[in-house]
């Protein structure tokens, strides 16, 4: 076992006017940090393409994860895929990235653009072998992994972006690689990297993609723990116990809530120094306590983080907000979404009498619900979450 883990994220654009995407991503995570990722691009667009790519990616991911050879997978696909009546072929291109113990990556590419890799913030061309399986030309490569290695797999919708409109020959692979190189090592998540790439494609397509467009990013990174404490314990005698547990864990520490930060400040015997800069008019200012990495207000700030987390998992449009802003919610979002792989929540269940005013849009139940929703979203981002109640 090593300390590395894979941060995986993707984003697809549908062909203009289509309800379904003809590209499909399938991910199977197995024990011992083994992961199989498949990006399949079905012939054409719409329902037919969607069926082809879904079948292809499911078959390959399932078979590969069971240790069945690539040759067998390709034969099975060729024998299984329905044949298109118009074109008389059964066809879906695919890229497979197989992570072995997060130590080695095996990459197999059939007719998709070759996977782009970045190492230490620079483009790293992976040498590949060419194989012929059942008449299909397949590129195969493998590479030993290092921390911060980043892979980007694409459907051809990316390299065709802007063909005949803004660009003569579309957005060529080497230009995409150079475009992504500048942001490959700045701490963006895999989801953000794939969103930046597809957003740019959408721009080149003038807002109407002429093909299904998908980017899949994988970042190999070290595990990093972050601890977040919110709310005072229901029994005030447990304050010291709660704070000492919270402070005993390694990794960065975030304290949310006025009363909560007072408890931490008393325990540490360090003052709370609030600032009064409103970077976002709706989010109360942050504060500092020596020994804690970030101190914010509680329920309003966490509510915003929760909104960002939900958006991150759907359209990922708000990364443009939390990615650079300096308010408490954006700062927490960067720490939880980008930095953390393992998050420990320390949640106090005390009821704040001031929040039970029916004229205020916050109350105890909302706080508990927010923490639940946020931890569920973070799990969906692939993070390991532990919630401790006091």
């Amino acid at each position, binding site marked *: 076992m090593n300390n590395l883990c894979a941060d995986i994220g993707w984003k697809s654009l549908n062909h203009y006017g289509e309800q379904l995407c003809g590209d499909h991503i399938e991910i199977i995570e197995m024990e011992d940090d083994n992961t199989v990722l498949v990006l399949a691009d079905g012939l054409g667009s719409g329902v037919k393409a969607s069926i082809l790519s879904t079948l292809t990616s499911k078959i390959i991911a399932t078979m590969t994860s069971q240790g069945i050879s690539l040759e067998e997978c390709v034969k099975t696909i060729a024998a299984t895929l329905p044949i298109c009546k118009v074109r008389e072929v059964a066809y879906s291109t695919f890229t497979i990235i197989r992570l072995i113990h997060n130590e080695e990556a095996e990459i197999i590419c059939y007719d998709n653009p070759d996977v782009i890799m970045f190492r230490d913030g620079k483009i790293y061309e992976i040498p590949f072998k060419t194989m012929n399986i059942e008449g299909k030309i397949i590129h195969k490569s493998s590479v030993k992994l290092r921390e911060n290695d980043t892979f980007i797999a694409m459907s051809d919708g990316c390299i065709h972006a802007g063909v005949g409109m803004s660009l003569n020959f579309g957005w060529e692979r080497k230009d995409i690689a150079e475009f992504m190189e500048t942001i490959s090592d700045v701490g963006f998540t895999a989801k953000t990297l794939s969103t930046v790439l597809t957003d740019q494609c959408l721009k080149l397509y003038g807002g109407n993609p002429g093909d299904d467009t998908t980017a899949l990013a994988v970042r190999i990174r070290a595990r990093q723990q972050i601890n977040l404490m919110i709310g005072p314990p229901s029994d005030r005698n447990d304050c010291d116990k709660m704070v000492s547990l919270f402070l005993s864990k390694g990794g960065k520490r975030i304290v949310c809530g006025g009363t909560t930060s007072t408890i931490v400040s008393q325990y540490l015997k360090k003052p709370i120094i*609030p600032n009064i800069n409103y970077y976002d008019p709706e989010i*109360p200012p942050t504060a500092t306590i020596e020994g804690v990495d970030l101190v914010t207000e509680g329920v*309003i700030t966490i509510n915003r983080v929760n909104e960002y987390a939900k958006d991150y998992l759907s359209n990922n449009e708000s990364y443009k907000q939390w990615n650079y802003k300096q308010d408490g919610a954006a700062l927490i979002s960067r720490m939880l979404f980008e930095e953390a792989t393992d998050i420990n929540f320390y949640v106090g269940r005390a009821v704040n009498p*001031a*929040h039970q005013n029916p004229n205020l849009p916050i109350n105890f139940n909302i706080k508990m619900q927010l923490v639940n929703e946020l931890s569920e979203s973070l799990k969906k981002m692939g993070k390991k979450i532990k919630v401790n109640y006091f």
Partner: protein
Amino acid sequence: MKVTVCIGSSCHLKGSRNIVEGLQNLIAENNLKDKVELGGTFCMNNCQNGVCVTVDDKNFSVSPDTVEEFFNTEILAKV
């Protein structure tokens, strides 16, 4: 003179930001930056009477509509 505005959840929802910005402007307009230290604090445990503001440890309840009046009587008149 030290003026502290509560920026806790409850006071925030009642308009702390308007009060902080209002006071910042009024202090600047009256050239009182050297004489008045404006700061924030988390919950003062007096949420029912928010927005809570203290002037040298004396408590006041201010709303966004009364900022100017509060500034004139409690700050400008007393520095």
